[in-house]
């Protein structure tokens, strides 16, 4: 029993005591009232679900009512996630990736299996397609799916700005088997667009002169200055979402490392 105490996010015994009536009901629901006890790992998952449904906040009173409100919120999030999925499917980029399609299929199928009443923290989908910036691992359940699909939708919409024939050379250069391997399609396209924006150019085609201009521009900049330049350029292309800012920071690190080792041309 102690192990539940140790693993519980909210930790304190006082909070656990408050949640016991709800846990008792959840155990009864899980066993259909046929068993008064469950394995500790099941109890732990049920308790995590209760905490997740309450949005990690244990109310002082009206616990049952707050729990029901939490479940209603989850239902709304499920509905929103389904809408987002539909939007992503309707706006697929002109270039394909097998893992993206498999992931979207798996998410679609998992809505039927998602047991938000008992195990809300666990959305049982195989999400293999990598985003340009991974979703925070601490985000669970339907919240993870909403965050994932929101970002994927933005990434794909951006790729849709270009025609297939413009995208293919960049992607082939980045990874010849971009359709079959577990790579992110947005990453090379966005990096190229950002680079071109830095020298006030549009499109994906880059010349040796362009590369030289970019190299000279970034040559004497500190990492933070590079990051700021990238953020400024990204704002001309996309809304400054947190993942874009993180992307710019990560890219600035990559650029500075390659620049210092003379490999910037290869990246561009």
């Amino acid at each position, binding site marked *: *029993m102690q192990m539940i105490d140790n693993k519980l996010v909210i930790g304190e015994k006082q909070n*656990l005591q408050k949640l016991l009536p709800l846990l008792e009901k959840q155990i009864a629901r899980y066993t259909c009232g*046929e*068993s*008064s006890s*469950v394995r500790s*790992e*099941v*109890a732990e998952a049920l308790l995590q679900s209760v905490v997740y449904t309450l949005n990690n906040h244990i109310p002082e009173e009206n616990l049952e009512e707050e729990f029901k409100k939490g479940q209603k919120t989850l239902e709304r999030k499920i509905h929103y996630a389904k809408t987002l999925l539909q939007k992503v499917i309707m706006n697929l980029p002109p270039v394909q990736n097998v893992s993206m399609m498999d992931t979207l299929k798996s998410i679609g199928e998992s809505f039927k299996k998602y047991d938000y009443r008992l195990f809300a923290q666990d959305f049982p989908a195989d999400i293999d397609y990598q985003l340009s910036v991974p979703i925070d691992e601490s985000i669970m359940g339907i919240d993870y799916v909403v965050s994932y699909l929101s970002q994927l939708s933005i990434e794909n919409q951006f790729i849709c700005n270009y025609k297939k024939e413009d995208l293919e050379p960049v992607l082939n250069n980045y990874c010849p088997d971009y359709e079959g391997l577990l790579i992110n399609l947005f990453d090379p396209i966005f990096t190229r667009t950002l680079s071109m924006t830095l020298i006030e150019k549009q499109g994906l085609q880059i010349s040796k002169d362009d590369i030289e201009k970019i190299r000279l521009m970034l040559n004497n900049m500190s990492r933070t200055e590079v990051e700021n330049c990238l953020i400024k350029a990204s704002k001309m292309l996309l809304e400054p979402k947190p993942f874009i800012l993180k992307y710019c920071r990560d890219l600035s690190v990559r650029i500075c490392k390659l620049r210092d080792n003379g490999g910037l041309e290869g990246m561009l």
Partner: protein
Amino acid sequence: MDGLILSESEKKQTLEVVNKITENFGLSLSEEAMVSLQRERMETLKKTGRVEVGNGILPKLIHAFCDSPYVNQSSYEETLSDLQELFYFYKNECNDLVSDDELIEALSLIYNDVARGDTGFIGDIPRETMYTVAVTGTIENTELEMPSLDEEFYADD
């Protein structure tokens, strides 16, 4: 996790309820015995990796076993302690595929029939057999089924 242990008032209430059930069979539990059984319950739950909320399985076990010819006052507490341990052990062994009532019914059937009040005998029963008895509600067609007198008679020939 103290929260899963009964409060003082709940303990007394449970004790009164179970003693009321068993008084006609000449069985009763003292407050100390109840405390001891609750402590053993917590230890068994910990040992078997299970979590239980509410009153626990003891009242149901008492209800099912109080009319057994093999249960008497002198061994009452010890028997309940053994049965409680067996219950949680087989709950795991049967992968939670049997309900509390089915398992208690199976334990009672075996205890009063082939085990003849020997809880040690029950602990040696393979899980497949316990599962079959729990699901079918009979020891027939299991290894526990004893040959009838006729079969024994002809077997000697």
